[in-house]
């Protein structure tokens, strides 16, 4: 049984679906990029430090392209910077999974693996979007997501199939992140509207491919797939965990302190 809890008590912003959809996908990448960037200078070794920075950069690039396009679709003159730096926590529409703290390296890899395994079928589907700009962004992001998935899968297997300690930590990371994965497959009126026009995709259609990838990699890693079906939701309508505000405070402080600053 899938248990879903939709937080109550705040009005949901009534955004135009095409705009909201691009914001959701853009925010996923922006927030994940910011998290991965926190690893810079702290990676377990130099190569991995560089790898995480490179992956962060890919996500940041996808975010910039999506937010720029979102601003154009909205038509109110907001550019990528306005959308990234001048929205409040409740206006961010990323999956709660993306904002989860880095934790140890296993936790970062579990988060990344679950997202990569979702991004690959998502970008595949969106490569045929009727929004040609989104299709172009997706075609480009797909190549990068495949590369990211290879990287994160390798680490999940290496840690899961490694020492007793690495196995214990990797399993704990998978268990910890699991409750946030279901949100990737829950659509609302926004996804329904964009799927109808061929701009977007029904998120449930991405589940079989994701399930297959996750089953294959967890099995090779000797890890257990959690049987807990509890799904933590809310990110898509701006209800976040306690971590996002802190992330945004760090990400946005320069723009908030010196509005419009350029260098």
């Amino acid at each position, binding site marked *: 049984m899938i248990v879903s809890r939709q937080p109550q008590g705040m009005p949901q912003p009534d955004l135009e679906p095409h705009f909201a959809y691009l914001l959701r996908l853009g925010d996923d990448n922006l927030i994940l990029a910011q998290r991965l960037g926190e690893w810079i200078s702290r990676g377990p070794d130099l190569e991995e430090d560089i790898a995480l920075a490179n992956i962060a*950069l890919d996500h940041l690039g996808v975010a910039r392209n999506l937010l720029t396009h979102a601003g154009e679709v909205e038509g109110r003159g907001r550019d990528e910077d306005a959308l990234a730096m001048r929205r409040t926590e409740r206006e961010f529409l990323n999956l709660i999974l993306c904002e989860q703290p880095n934790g140890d390296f296993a936790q970062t890899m579990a988060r990344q693996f679950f997202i990569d395994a979702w991004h690959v079928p998502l970008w595949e589907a969106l490569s045929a979007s009727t929004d040609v700009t989104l299709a172009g962004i997706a075609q480009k992001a797909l190549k990068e997501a495949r590369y990211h998935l290879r990287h994160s899968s390798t680490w999940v297997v290496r840690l899961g199939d490694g020492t007793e300690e690495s196995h214990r930590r990797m399993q704990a990371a998978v268990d910890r992140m699991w409750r946030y994965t279901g949100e990737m497959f829950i659509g609302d009126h926004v996804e329904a509207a964009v799927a109808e026009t061929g701009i977007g995709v029904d998120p449930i259609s991405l589940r079989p491919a994701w399930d297959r990838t996750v089953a294959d990699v967890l099995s090779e890693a000797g890890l257990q797939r959690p049987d807990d079906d509890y799904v933590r939701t809310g990110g898509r309508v701006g209800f976040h965990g306690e971590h996002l505000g802190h992330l945004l405070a760090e990400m946005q402080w320069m723009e908030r302190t010196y509005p419009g600053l350029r260098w």
Partner: protein
Amino acid sequence: MDGTDLSGAQMVITVEDVVPVVASVADPELPFVTIEELGILRGVDVDDMGGVIVTVTPTYSGCPATEVIRDSILEALRRAGHHRAEVRTVFSPPWTTDDITPEGRRKLEAHAIAPPRRLLGLDHPILCPRCRSASTSLLSEFGSTACKALRVCDSCGEPFDHFKEL
């Protein structure tokens, strides 16, 4: 050149005039390779008013060189007397390493960067750019820039960058 000839009459700017200016712009991270050789220059047009429109595509979504390349193109055009110019970015079809020209590949190898294999030839070995040994190993899938992986030659022991296939 400032768009006028000595008699003061307006000169007609043609695509043929501006293509060499744009095509010779260097990549900021691989300054020995031009944007044309890298395969990211998608088009050069001149509009009715003599404005230059350059179309480029990024290598990677987040490639930090993209903005430098745009500025370099505009600067090269300005130096050639073309002050009305615009750089447009397109994503589709996505850039692939197969778009790198033979000359671009030769230059990469001459600068000790193993060029990407053709996407249909990924079963070919990656040769050491120093001793051309076919026996090389992957050190890291991610190297000094987003587009490169780090390898080491099993024969001569030299570490080297490999422009990864995309």
